[in-house]
């Protein structure tokens, strides 16, 4: 990882100075000359993608792209912004001037503007965001892995008839962030991954199964065997499905699905929603919003993790925070605007959550199923039926119906509904499942208070 932070940059003495730094310098000096404050963020990404089907390459695409964003704050923190992909010096100058012009149309807002300088900077420690092996990865290296994973998935069960689409992708990005206050940072990152989707058919009914792995580091990827087998297993796991009975039911969210609930909590705690009154949590700071066993952490400083970052999108230094502690909402997630508006401490959440996780409990999967007794295991949610203003949560699901601690049949074309005000306090057991690779990670959760919609 290459990260630098200097409060007074001296580009002339900087060996890594290149087109990104030049664009940032020009943007900042143009904003200063126009008499406005502002931020320039400029990035470059080198990426490729391969799609594979039936053991052969279907599509290969590659590109190097650039992106430039300039935000200007005129007197009274009136805001204007411009984005473009052209890093040519004349284009950057024109874009910065236009951002300053647009700012003049804004209305004064005391909460807008650059973050307080004391909050800005890069968190220390080596976050290991950048894997040189990924940056150097040739696409031909990963194709045999994808083809093997696809073959393993197809061979998993005779009902699996076709590959839908499998593929791999790889990206290395680098970005520079600079403000007229003299804050400047530069950091890079890599990501690599592959996935498999296969289709099964039995009795005239098609089902699909997918599975994916991704990581910042090449060595962090799961094996072709693991990905292929899991995609194959999923393609056939719902055959013999029936709709569950309609009515209140205890629900066990498998960890693959539980992340959706966790994501909803983070969105509901976002500062932007709080000052708009657009979340049911707006007056719940310090209050019990979930069962006492629930602790939720957002940690941007985990080495190698996908959501890790030394600073947020406004240059605010990253820090680990507890969002929920012992069931109580301990903070909102704020950017600089929301921090000022709500008179709330900075949390470094411009650009959203980093690595959000619910702290695992002690119950094993079998114990959770036994405690579920009669009810629904949800393995996947479908659709977006969450209304954070009211707390209403209503989604399509697939999974398994359980009676007396035993799986009776698979389920699809069903819904679960409830209100987060009751569902989060209704969490009665938390699994001890290992954390996964995603930026939102939850163990399995056993919850009271859902209504199941089926037959």
């Amino acid at each position, binding site marked *: 990882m290459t990260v630098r932070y200097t409060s007074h940059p001296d580009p002339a003495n900087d060996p890594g100075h290149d087109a990104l730094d030049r664009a940032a310098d020009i943007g900042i000096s143009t904003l200063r000359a126009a008499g406005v404050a502002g931020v320039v963020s400029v990035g470059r990404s080198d990426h490729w993608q391969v799609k594979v089907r039936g053991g052969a390459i279907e599509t290969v695409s590659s590109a190097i792209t650039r992106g430039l964003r300039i935000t200007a704050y005129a007197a009274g923190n009136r805001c204007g912004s411009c984005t473009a*992909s052209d890093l040519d010096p004349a284009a950057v100058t024109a874009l910065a001037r236009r951002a300053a012009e647009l700012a003049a*149309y804004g209305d004064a807002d005391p909460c807008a503007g650059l973050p307080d300088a004391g909050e800005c900077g890069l968190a220390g420690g080596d976050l290991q965001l950048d894997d040189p092996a990924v940056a150097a990865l040739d696409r031909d290296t990963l194709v045999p892995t994808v083809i093997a994973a696809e073959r393993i998935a197809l061979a998993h069960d005779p009902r699996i008839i076709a590959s839908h689409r499998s593929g791999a992708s790889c990206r290395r990005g680098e970005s520079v962030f600079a403000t007229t206050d003299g804050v400047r940072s530069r950091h890079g990152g890599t990501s690599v991954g592959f996935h498999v989707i296969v289709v099964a058919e039995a009795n005239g009914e098609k089902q*699909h199964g997918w599975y994916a792995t991704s990581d910042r580091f090449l060595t962090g990827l799961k094996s072709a065997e693991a990905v292929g087998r899991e995609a194959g297993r999923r393609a056939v796991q719902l055959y013999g499905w029936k709709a569950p009975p309609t009515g209140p039911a205890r629900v066990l969210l498998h960890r693959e699905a539980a992340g959706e609930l966790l994501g909803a909590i983070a969105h509901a705690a976002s500062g932007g929603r709080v000052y708009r009154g657009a979340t049911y949590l707006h007056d719940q700071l310090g209050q019990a919003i979930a069962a006492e066993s629930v602790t939720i952490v957002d940690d941007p400083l985990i080495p190698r993790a996908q959501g890790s970052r030394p600073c947020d999108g406004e240059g605010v230094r990253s820090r680990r925070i507890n969002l929920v502690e012992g069931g109580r909402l301990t903070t909102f997630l704020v950017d600089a605007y929301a921090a000022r508006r709500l008179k709330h401490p900075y949390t470094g959440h411009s650009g959203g959550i980093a690595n959000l996780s619910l702290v695992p409990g002690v119950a094993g999967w079998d114990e959770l199923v036994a405690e579920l007794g009669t009810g629904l295991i949800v393995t996947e949610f479908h659709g977006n039926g969450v209304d954070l203003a009211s707390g209403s949560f209503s989604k399509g699901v697939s999974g398994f119906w359980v009676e007396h601690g035993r799986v009776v049949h698979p389920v699809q074309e069903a819904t679960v509904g409830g209100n987060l005000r009751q569902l989060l306090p209704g969490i009665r057991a938390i699994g001890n499942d290992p954390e996964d690779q995603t930026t939102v990670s939850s163990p399995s959760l056993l919850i009271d208070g859902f209504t199941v919609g089926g037959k």
Partner: protein
Amino acid sequence: MPAPILDAATCQRLLSAALERGGDFADVFVERSSSRSLVFEERKVKSASEHRGLGVGIRVVTGERTGYAYCEELDEKTLLATARRAAAIASGAPTTPVQLTERVGPAGRYGRQWPMAEVGVDERIGLVRRACDRAYAKDPRISWVSVSLGDQEQQVTIAASDGTFVSDHRPLLRFTVSAFAGDGARREHGSDNVGGRAGRERLDEAALDRTTDEAVRRAVLLLTAEESPAGEMPVVLGPGGCGVLIHEAVGHGLEADFNRKGVSCFSGRMGEMVASPLVSVIDDGTIPGDRGALALDDEGVPAGRTVLIERGKLVGYMQDRLSARLTGAALTGNGRRESYAHVPMPRMRCTYLAGGDDDPADIIRSVKRGLYVAAIGGGSVDITKGDFNFTVTEGYRIEDGRITAPVRGATLIGNGPEAMRRVERTGRDWAVSADGGTCGKDGQGVPANLGMPTTLISALVVGGLKTGERANA
């Protein structure tokens, strides 16, 4: 006729470079875009922003294989290198592209008497301020209003190895009002938008007032809504935007790429009855000024009106060049892409269920207990199983043939082909949505629109919180 962004001679050289290692087909997609956006919140201009984009995507197709590369400058050396990166997929003797001949797409698809590019920031501020003031004044329970106005001009030039050389200049406009209403501890949200491939003329006072009033009405209505009933019941969908149902339940499954690969629930069913005889589904790129309108698709093919299902019978798929070539089908002008950074795919334009003969009031009267859906927020579909889901943003109970209490928190789920077999009545009040939405597929978003008449589906599973009442038609 729109002027090409890149001249024919340069495009011809790029196509030759792209086919240096052989290949069945190559194309060059040149895009220049600009967009402007204004966000007005709490009676203030929150931000004014602009975007400028430029890029070139080059594709080489050989058999079922596609090579794609793009760059963000028009420098010929970079362009040739990009063409050769795309060509790496092929490995044979060079192919010679056909000499490019400039052609013109169908006229009159975009309403643009008054281009938005000519509308200054001050005038835009006036439009959004007026809507914001109106929303606050409309009801004392309105606690927060956000109004946004965004427009885009997308210029494209497409050159292909079959001699195609065309340019298109597409406007896109959207005006959105979003309002929160508060009443004690309860908070509810309502929104509405108007727009399309049109200019400033689309934003007349009546249209803006209607959009504003609708957002306010929905937010306030939800303050008195009860929890939705749950379980299987008859559902009546209102005209216009509820066409999301058709888009998800039928549309995606009829995109040719899924069917060529045999992974759609409609694969291999051409000519079969796949829906009730009341169901005719059309994907239409020809409605002037519509959000789904196109003169030419993103492969330079004139966009037409494609009948997908005719009185219940599956008669057509939506094609892009790749699928059409591999299956010997005729082109339909459905090859679309989000931008130069994306490979084209079969995509929808304005997809709708055709109108029927019934009086909408009769349709509602025919239902003893069920759900009336006036607006849907969004949905998704698993094209393999055909299972879809939607979020209802404005819904009501139907009791004894009458629309009664508003409900909130309803989700509709079902299976596309199954739901289409359960279409029992279609009304004579066919309409398309005043704006439409953004359709996402494989990570690419494109503007699309929807439509339908009042429609009765005899049974769908409704997700909600209230149980214990069985519903029967």
